[in-house]
């Protein structure tokens, strides 16, 4: 860690101002050609929310089809294409770019940097992601993939999926994968090299820690999925037989490669969420984070163990017995650092003075939802129990609890938290609270009952089901919940659009935050900071506020002295 910068005291009193050296460029072309991390971040977020709307409509169509038993609203072909697009969209085109957007915007600000290490690479990442989305949705013009977001071989081979939908899925994975890969390199280099003076590893904000860990996970796992889909591509078009059992290939090869990426992917999605929560809870509890080092250690621990447990997605395939035991115990181990995090979050609030803006409400909704998702994870990790639950609606419920509870709610919290910084305007708290109540309530109504549907024998990815074991009732409840959830998300979109125009002026530090992004105007100028302050603790903004107070006091005393 470098400490060569001049001591900030030579710059005089830190002030909550920064000015731009050049006038801010305007016009749509200035956005398209921008390499400013803040504009790229906003474009990531806007594009990802467009895909959220598309993926959400797909989800509602799925729920409509399943609302009643033996429904004939959609054909099996349409239904299979819908859940394939829904899963792919939400993972690759909504959550990953949403996280990339939030991180792009906030990470340089939080570490006191003026941009990312490689601004052009950053722009490349954005446009590769958008290209991936276009290529994937281009398949709507012929016939979209029907093999699920996991695209298991040999179902995804040409013999069983002759349409080019699978090829467009492959290219999506390649484009979005390269986008994430260069984004991860950028984050890694930025965080390791461009931190403010004094920001040693023990003072790095927890969100930045999780983004650094996520970057490492991406760098490890993206090449594997890129290789896997390349093999699938050559199987489909160049006569190879990597996944074709009748010619010496193996369908299990696909599953191992896919889940070697697919399981770290879960932590790629939720670790940044953990980071957001670790930023928001202390601010609105008016307390320092409880157990900073333990949380960092838990983050790294989850990443290490999470990379070694992929085959718990494969407990029902023919797998040597000792491997099942290894992957079961390994998966149990993930629960320990996760539990450590949850307890540290609860004790961050404990004996605090808790305020409840919408950002904090989403953080609390995250805690409750992710708690249940974590617990059902233990059920699934126990392989004999998984034999019953695997590939049923229990699993569907579980991963929505972890991904929506762990990643989406955290990103919603982050959106409400950082919106004032990004736009200079506050969001409407009242509308936000209504939106939160509908989103959280709708989510629990939709997905809690799906555990029961799975336990009653309903496999996932079926376009119709017989009305046995109350499945009709469970699914109707779930469908009603999904529309409540959708209404909640819609209200947040309305809130964003309204607040952009009519929101109250935010000022540089509306929440009395802990980290450096609140040290600069909202929205920040192109260069972020005129002066990068020396960092002396995990909460540099608190130090700065204290220093200002002290100097105000000194000034006042001096003024009083002069006057008398």
């Amino acid at each position, binding site marked *: 860690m470098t400490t060569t910068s001049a001591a900030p005291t030579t710059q005089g009193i830190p002030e909550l101002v920064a000015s731009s050296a050049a006038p801010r460029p305007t016009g749509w072309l200035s956005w398209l050609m921008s390499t400013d991390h803040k504009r790229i971040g906003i474009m990531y977020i806007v594009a990802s929310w467009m895909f959220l709307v598309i993926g959400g409509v797909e989800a509602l169509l799925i729920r409509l089809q399943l609302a009643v038993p033996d429904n004939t609203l959609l054909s099996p072909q349409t239904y*299979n294409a819908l859940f394939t697009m829904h899963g792919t969209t939400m993972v690759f085109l909504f959550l990953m770019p949403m996280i990339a957007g939030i991180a792009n915007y906030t990470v340089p600000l939080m570490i006191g940097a003026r941009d990312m290490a490689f601004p052009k690479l950053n722009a490349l990442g954005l446009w590769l992601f958008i290209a991936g989305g276009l290529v994937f949705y281009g398949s709507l013009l012929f016939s979209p993939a029907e*093999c*699920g977001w996991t695209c*298991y071989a*040999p*179902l995804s081979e040409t013999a*069983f999926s002759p349409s080019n939908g699978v090829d467009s899925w492959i290219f999506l994975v390649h484009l979005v994968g390269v986008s994430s890969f260069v984004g991860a390199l950028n984050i890694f280099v930025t965080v390791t090299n461009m931190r403010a003076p004094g920001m040693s590893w023990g003072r790095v904000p927890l969100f930045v820690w999780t983004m650094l860990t996520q970057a490492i996970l991406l760098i490890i796992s993206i090449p594997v999925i890129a290789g896997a889909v390349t093999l699938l591509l050559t199987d489909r078009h160049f006569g190879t037989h990597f996944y074709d*059992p*009748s010619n010496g290939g193996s*369908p*299990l090869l696909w599953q191992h490669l896919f889940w070697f990426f697919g399981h770290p992917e879960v932590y790629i999605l939720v670790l940044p969420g953990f980071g957001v929560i670790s930023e928001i809870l202390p601010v609105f509890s008016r*307390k*320092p*984070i*409880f157990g*900073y080092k333990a949380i960092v250690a838990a983050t790294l621990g989850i990443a290490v163990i999470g990379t070694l447990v992929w085959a718990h997605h494969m407990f*029902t*395939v*023919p797998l040597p*017995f000792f491997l099942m035991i290894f992957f*079961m115990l390994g998966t*149990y*181990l993930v*629960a*320990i650092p996760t539990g450590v995090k949850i*307890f*540290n979050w*609860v*004790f961050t*609030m*404990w*004996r*605090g*003075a*808790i305020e409840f803006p919408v950002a904090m409400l989403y953080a*609390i909704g995250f*805690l409750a939802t992710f*708690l*249940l998702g974590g617990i*059902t994870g*233990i*059920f699934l990790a*126990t392989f*004999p*129990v998984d*034999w*019953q*639950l*695997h590939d*049923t609606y229990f699993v569907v419920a579980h991963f929505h609890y972890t991904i929506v509870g762990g990643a989406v709610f955290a990103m919603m919290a982050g959106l409400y938290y950082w919106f004032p910084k990004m736009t200079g305007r506050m969001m409407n708290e009242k509308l936000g609270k209504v939106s939160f109540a509908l989103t959280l309530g709708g989510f629990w109504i939709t997905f809690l009952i799906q*555990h*029961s549907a799975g*336990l*009653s*024998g309903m*496999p996932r*990815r*079926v*376009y119709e089901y017989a009305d046995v074991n*109350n499945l009709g009732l469970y699914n109707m409840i779930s469908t009603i919940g999904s529309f409540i959830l959708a209404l909640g998300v819609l209200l947040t979109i309305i809130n964003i659009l309204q607040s952009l125009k009519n929101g109250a002026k935010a000022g540089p530090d509306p929440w009395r935050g802990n980290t450096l992004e609140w040290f600069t105007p909202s929205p920040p100028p192109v260069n972020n900071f005129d002066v990068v302050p020396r960092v002396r603790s995990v909460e540099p903004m608190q130090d700065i506020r204290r220093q200002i107070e002290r100097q105000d006091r000194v000034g006042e005393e001096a003024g009083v002295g002069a006057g008398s």
Partner: protein
Amino acid sequence: MTPRPAKNGILFGIVVTAALLIPAAGAFAGVIAPESGGGTPNAEAIRSLYLLIFGLGCVVFFGVGGLIVWTLVRYRASTGAVAEQVRGNNRLEVGWTVGAALLLVLISVVTFLKLDQIKNPPNSSANGLATPQNISFNTGPAKPSLPPNGRSLNIDVNGQQYIWRYTYADTDTNNLNNVFSYEQMVVPTNTTISLSIRAQDVQHSWWIPELGGKFDAVPGYTNYTWFKITKPGVYDGQCAELCGRGHATMVASVKAVSPAEFKLWYAAQKAAIVASEKEAATARNALVAKDAAALKAAPKDAAAPAAPVAAVDGKEIFVAGVPATGALACGSCHTLKDAGTNAAVGPSLDAILKGQSAAMIKASILNPNAILSKGFAANIMPANYGTSLTKAQLDALVKYVDQAVNGK
């Protein structure tokens, strides 16, 4: 099988709470616990393991959830609470790390205790079907899950888009002669049933919820499971791994009947196979007779153009076929010493046509599916020789093959 009372008081408390929750959970079967009810020990063991984890999960969820709610209410800013500036507590950190670890050790221990009951099949009961020793398909290096005495009813489960085929292995090594059924599997009660699960196109997953867990049918692999039903009845399930557009309709069911009833069903199935073979033989004989009649009538009809018959070379047709009309060469699939061919797609003609009449050879060329050689499936040999060969070519071919095999 219950966990040993731990010295740790808290842990013991958790176990007691869990134990209390288990009977409560039984009241909501299907809502909060997996299905069971066929009386097969593996499904029961999985269910009780599930309920233990469910109980512990409830304790954790309501414990931590309660703590969160209490914290939010007690320390809300509107009460004028003053935030205490603490940064952590190492004892607490160690405490919940160890606590979580202990909980997981408990679950692991119980899982290992239950594993034997889940994984290893027991012997059939005395009132079950008397089954012969380990007859099963040779489907891979691994062995099916067999009971200690090695006697179980072995059934081959084959997943196909979008139906399940069940084959009951018996001493006839030609699987095509074994009793089989589609969609519904009939099994005797109180008898250990060992399943070998395979797939022939894409991946499927065998799952009857009440009879225990699911096992994927992966092309190129064989998966094994077992069950032993005590309660007669029909147990429904369906394919649990996306296998294409018909995935939702790929249902399965197991009908458990008494061993006596099962024997009747089995005998009826076997008789049906024999009857259908007889039917095929009758049809074949009729064809042979018809052809023989036609042959007899032939000289009168074709008296004038007798000469071209000699011009056609039967061996040539056998080796090269007649590409112009789409008649494939016999020799590319069949072994015939005289023609110098040694392919093995179809049966060796030297072996199967020995001693057969020319009429029979002709009938077999024209209707390849009428009688199948052991070990060879229907619809592999083209059935177009009646149209792709002229009558003269066909006769020459039959004459050549007959001579080559039977030396006439």
